[in-house]
C-alpha cells in the first residue's frame, strides 16, 4: 500500500472507524485518539492488512475494537461477562436518540461491540467474528443478548407516546 492508497483508505474509512470508537467510548476525544492510532498503525505497517483475510473496513474496525478494548482495560472498564443485564432507566430520557445511546452504552462491552458492528456498521457475522476474534456462534449469542437487553431497556419507547412514560419508584 503506497502513500496515495493509504490516504484513500483513510478518506474512505475514517468516518466508520471514528463512529465505531465514538459509540464504543461515548467520548469524542477517545474516539479521535483511537481512530488516530488505527490509521497510524496502518501507515507504519501497511503490510499488516492482508486482503485475503477480508475487507479493509472490517480490518480497521477490528483494529479500532482492539484499541477501545486496550483503553477500557487500562481504565478497568472492560467487563468480560457477557450475560449481564443492563441497569438502565429509560424514563430519565425524553429524547429518544439520547435514550438509545445511553442504552447501547450501558451494554457490556462484548455485547456492545457486536451490536454496533452489526447494526451501525453493517458488518456480516463472519466479519464481526473476525473483528472481535470470536466464533460466529458466540457473536450470534452476544447479538441476541444485546438485542434482548435493548428491547427491555427501550420498552417504553415502543409505545406510541414515550413522553408519557413516568419512571415509577
Amino acid at each position: 500500500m503506497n502513500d496515495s492508497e493509504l490516504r484513500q483508505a483513510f478518506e474512505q474509512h475514517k468516518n466508520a472507524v471514528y463512529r465505531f470508537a465514538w459509540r464504543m467510548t461515548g467520548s469524542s476525544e477517545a474516539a479521535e485518539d483511537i481512530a488516530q492510532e488505527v490509521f497510524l498503525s496502518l501507515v507504519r505497517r501497511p503490510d499488516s492488512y492482508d486482503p485475503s483475510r477480508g475487507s479493509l473496513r472490517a480490518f480497521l474496525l477490528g483494529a479500532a475494537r482492539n484499541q477501545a478494548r486496550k483503553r477500557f482495560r487500562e481504565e478497568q472498564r472492560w467487563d468480560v461477562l457477557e450475560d449481564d443485564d443492563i441497569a438502565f432507566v429509560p424514563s430519565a430520557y425524553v429524547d429518544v436518540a439520547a435514550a438509545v445511546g445511553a442504552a447501547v452504552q450501558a451494554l457490556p462491552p462484548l455485547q456492545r461491540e457486536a451490536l454496533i458492528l452489526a447494526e451501525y456498521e453493517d458488518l456480516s457475522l463472519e466479519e464481526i467474528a473476525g473483528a472481535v476474534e470470536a466464533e460466529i456462534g458466540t457473536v450470534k449469542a452476544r447479538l441476541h443478548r444485546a438485542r434482548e437487553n435493548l428491547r427491555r431497556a427501550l420498552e417504553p419507547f415502543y409505545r406510541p407516546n414515550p413522553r408519557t412514560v413516568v419512571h415509577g419508584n
Partner: protein
Amino acid sequence: METNDQKLKELLQKWEAPSAPSSLAQRVFPRQRWWQWLWTGSIRVPVPVGLAVLVAAGGLWLLNRPVVSAPQKPVSLADFRPVEQLEPRIIRSTNYEH
C-alpha cells in the same frame, strides 16, 4: 418478534454518531515544512544499498588517504669520529656494582 426487531432497528437508527473531525487527518498525516523534515525526517534505505554505499565510501577513503611518512633528512657521515682510545671492560658475572 419480527415487528419488535424492526422497531428496535428503527430506534437504534435514531442514535446518530458524528463524522470524524477534520483534525484527525492532520493527526494521521501531519504536514511538515521542508526545514522541519531536516530535523525529524527519515529516509528508508534498503540494506544492500546501504552496505554498498558504506563499502564504496570505505574504499574511497582507503585509496585517497594521505600517506604519512617521516620527514627524510639527507644522511651525512660528516660528524662521525673514529674512537680514539678503547677501554674494554670485562664483566664476569651479573652481580656487579655500578
